[in-house]
């Protein structure tokens, strides 16, 4: 075997080796993905399996004894439909409210000139270091004094301000050239028109990222409603789920699973439809924090 042949053979085998390595990485990735999804698949399959077969071991990975009884029980045991509506209402109010207050404030910080503007902005940024877990006690006392405990107002009013949203939108507005507005200003457009007709239409992806991020946080929050709410018919979904499992001694695990699946399956469908934009939104909001 000549030296050239040996080099060629070695190169060929290293190319084959790297192709093998690439397949191996893909296979490992696929195994991880399957393992990650397995608990969710188990949740859904268990929730539609007859209670006496639901937790048999090994699990019935292909459901043979299908029933919707557990779903019916979960809606009987707690006012789950009302709780889902509560979550939808609170999330909608918070998302729209945060987008509105953030847009207005971001415009002021990016475009208006007034004394103390940058100082005030810095004061706002301090809020990023003060999480709700610290302000919860005074806000709880405030809500109690105002008689707002156990109401929906106590869930959305304190989180209507999003300093992150202001920061994020301000950065975006600063990146848009002033010339965009000059023509409108000559035509006599005021700040509100400039914001709503020129800047915001150019901020689609940013607003979408903010909306996805804030909807996710609000929809999934457990800490805050767990403190503010005590009546089952005022609860949001996460608190309702835990209440179903722990608050009423006796909801069987399958019923809890059915309740979790009731909110997880629509989320999964929504995610599969809008996967690209949801992941891009989360990445965008995440990277700029």
């Amino acid at each position, binding site marked *: 075997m000549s030296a050239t042949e040996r080099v060629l053979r070695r190169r060929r085998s290293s190319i084959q080796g790297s192709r093998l390595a690439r397949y191996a990485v893909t296979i490992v990735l696929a195994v991880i993905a399957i393992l990650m999804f397995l608990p969710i698949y*188990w949740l859904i399959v268990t929730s539609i399996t007859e209670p006496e077969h639901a937790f048999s071991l090994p699990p019935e990975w292909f459901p043979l004894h299908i029933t919707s009884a557990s779903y019916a029980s979960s809606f009987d045991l707690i006012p789950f439909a009302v709780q889902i509506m509560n979550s939808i209402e609170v999330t909608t109010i918070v998302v729209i409210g945060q987008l509105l207050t953030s847009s207005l404030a971001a415009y002021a910080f990016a475009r208006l000139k007034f004394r103390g503007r940058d100082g005030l902005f810095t004061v706002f940024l301090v809020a990023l270091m003060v999480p709700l877990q610290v302000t919860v006690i005074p*806000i709880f006392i405030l809500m109690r004094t105002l008689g707002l405990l156990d109401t929906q107002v106590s869930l959305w009013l304190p989180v209507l301000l999003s300093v992150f949203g202001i920061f994020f939108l301000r950065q975006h507005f600063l990146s848009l050239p002033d010339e965009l507005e000059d023509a409108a200003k000559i035509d006599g457009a005021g700040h509100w028109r400039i914001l709503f007709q020129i800047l915001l239409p150019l901020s689609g992806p940013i607003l979408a990222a903010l909306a996805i991020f804030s909807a996710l946080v609000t929809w999934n929050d457990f800490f805050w409603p767990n403190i503010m709410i005590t009546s089952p018919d005022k609860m949001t979904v996460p608190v309702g789920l835990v209440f179903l499992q722990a608050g009423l001694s006796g909801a069987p695990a399958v019923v809890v699973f059915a309740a979790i699946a009731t909110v997880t399956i629509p989320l*999964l469908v929504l995610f599969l439809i809008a996967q690209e934009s949801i992941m891009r939104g989360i990445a965008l909001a*995440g990277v700029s924090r």
Partner: protein
Amino acid sequence: MLSPSVLLYIAFVAMPLVAAITLSFFKWDLLTAPQFAGLANFVELATDGTTFRAIGNTFLFAIATVIFHMVGGLLLAIALNRPLNRLLRKVLSAAIFFPVLMSWAAVSLIWRYALDPNFGFVNYYLKQLGLTPPNWFADASSAMPSLIGIDVWHSLGYTMVILLAGLQSIPPTLYEAARLDGAGPVRQFWSVTVPLLSPTLLFASIISFVGAFQIFDPMFIITKGGPDNSTLSVVQDVYYSAFRDFDMGYASAKSLIIVAVILIVTMLQLRLSKRWVNYDK
């Protein structure tokens, strides 16, 4: 235009922060009048073994999850950033990312049952493989590692997506140049990927740490902080003082620990990002 935000800021950030600091000098059970207590709450805090335990637990949780998120998220992001079939990439990233969208409440309940010693499927398969499953949440030695594992399952996709965005912003010409200079994949990783990704890595570890330091839900829902306070988190400790013991002053004093830690970490971030992070692009 600023007035709604300024009003909300005063009502729900500034005043509560000042109130929390003020309250930390008082004793108040919400029923009788608040009583000035001087530094009593802080003296109590300095000798409170439970709170120290909670601080230790929370640091352990936060540091461990940050390490797993960064290493795991980076490996997954690199694996997904290779040339792959589009549909395959979509399916794989969807499966890994989806848990991020679920609430901690749902995640905690699912894993509580999945790791149940009697009817959980995890123990069943571990036994099939001839392994002895740990007692998961029932042992003080395995409860915290179990919670850390659940967090990695829940939030790994978040770190992955952020790092993936970081990887995609590295210009491919740099890799071409490195290849022409004879750099192999390992050399490319250390000489191109790591330095150019370092701002994203630093940033992702900071938000991951700050988020993890405020952990509450899984401890509250699954372990109640036990067994033997081995999973009690700082926020949970504050919660129990305020809403179980109705000791508002003491709870406020404890909650200031969270502000202090976030403040220190943020300062550290600013320092570090000046010193070793490569922002040249």
